[in-house]
């Protein structure tokens, strides 16, 4: 039996959450259209989704993944023209950014791998503090997430498509199966000025065949959600970011290969 999934249910919950927990700076929002199936084909679904996300951005900074995964490609990241490769929702906000990039209320974080569209009261200010040459660590967007108060929200996404937070935790725990690598990147900003630099990335070692154990990630995430916030359904979670980060790092420090399959 397939459940009816109403997009309004999720947004109502998020808005209630933000009312209950004051002084939150941001929410990272990740949603799979596929999860909604028949509901997504109804007239008004697209407009409602975009409207409710924008309404959310009136009160908190909303981060929409705009990842490009250029590490295997040409390694030129043009912030206004390098398309995200994640799907419809991400494309919509990228187009919006292209149309309104001069506005202080929408911006794109500069990273040739983990870029985000930020909409909200402090969008430009947040992005200005992020370096285009670090995937993780102090000058990356992940540091903003850790230093500020916010939620990581996944609606209907599969863990393997959504838990990029795990890589930042792996770097914090300095896991043995990843290492810092550097490669040359050409970054082109909104003024069409190009800067070249070494992009630092905490990458999986070439001789390691192991990969995420997604079941363990889901179980750990569900444990977290059940105990501190709420599990909306079996594929959707909202975590307080810093708490989730600490939980994952602590797990990796105890058992560095916890998420590895072999």
């Amino acid at each position, binding site marked *: *039996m397939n459940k009816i999934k109403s997009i309004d249910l999720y947004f109502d919950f998020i808005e209630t959450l933000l009312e209950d927990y004051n002084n939150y700076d941001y929410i990272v929002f990740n949603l799979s*259209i*596929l999860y909604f199936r*028949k509901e*997504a*084909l109804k007239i008004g679904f697209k407009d409602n989704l975009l409207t409710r996300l924008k309404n959310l951005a009136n009160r908190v900074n909303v981060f929409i993944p705009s990842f490009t995964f250029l590490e295997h490609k040409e390694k030129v990241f043009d912030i206004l023209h390098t398309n995200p490769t994640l*799907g419809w929702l991400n494309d919509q906000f990228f187009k919006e950014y292209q149309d309104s990039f001069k506005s202080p209320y929408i911006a794109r974080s500069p990273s040739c791998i983990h870029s985000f569209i930020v909409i909200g009261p402090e969008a430009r200010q947040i992005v200005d503090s992020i370096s285009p040459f670090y995937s993780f660590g102090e000058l990356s967007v992940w540091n903003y997430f850790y230093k500020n108060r916010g939620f990581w929200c996944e609606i209907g996404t599969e863990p393997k498509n959504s838990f990029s937070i795990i890589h930042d935790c792996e770097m914090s725990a300095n896991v043995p199966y990843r290492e810092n690598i550097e490669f040359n990147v050409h970054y082109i900003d909104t003024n069409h000025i190009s800067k070249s630099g070494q992009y630092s990335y905490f990458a999986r070692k070439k001789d390691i065949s192991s990969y995420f154990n997604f079941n363990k990630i889901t179980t750990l995430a569900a444990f977290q959600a059940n105990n501190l916030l709420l599990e909306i359904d079996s594929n959707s979670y909202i975590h307080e970011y810093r708490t989730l980060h600490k939980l994952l790092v602590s797990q990796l420090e105890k058992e560095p290969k916890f998420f590895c399959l072999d």
Partner: protein
Amino acid sequence: MNDKQKLLDFILHKSDLDSIEEIPLESSLLIEGILDSFGIIELVEFVESDWQITIDDAEFNIENFGSVNKILEFIDRKKQ
């Protein structure tokens, strides 16, 4: 019209491609940019209605819908 032809006709109609030969059989229609998320959902609805099968949420995954060939194998299994 056989299952494969029927499926490829639908995909061609929903995509920006010019011919059936351009549709990849072994890779993801989503990742290859042949269909977007809404196109994939329409494809699932099409499979349900045209082959008169019910697809549970749990079956709507990359193992069953990760490529044209996987979809055809899935339809075969569901028909049995």
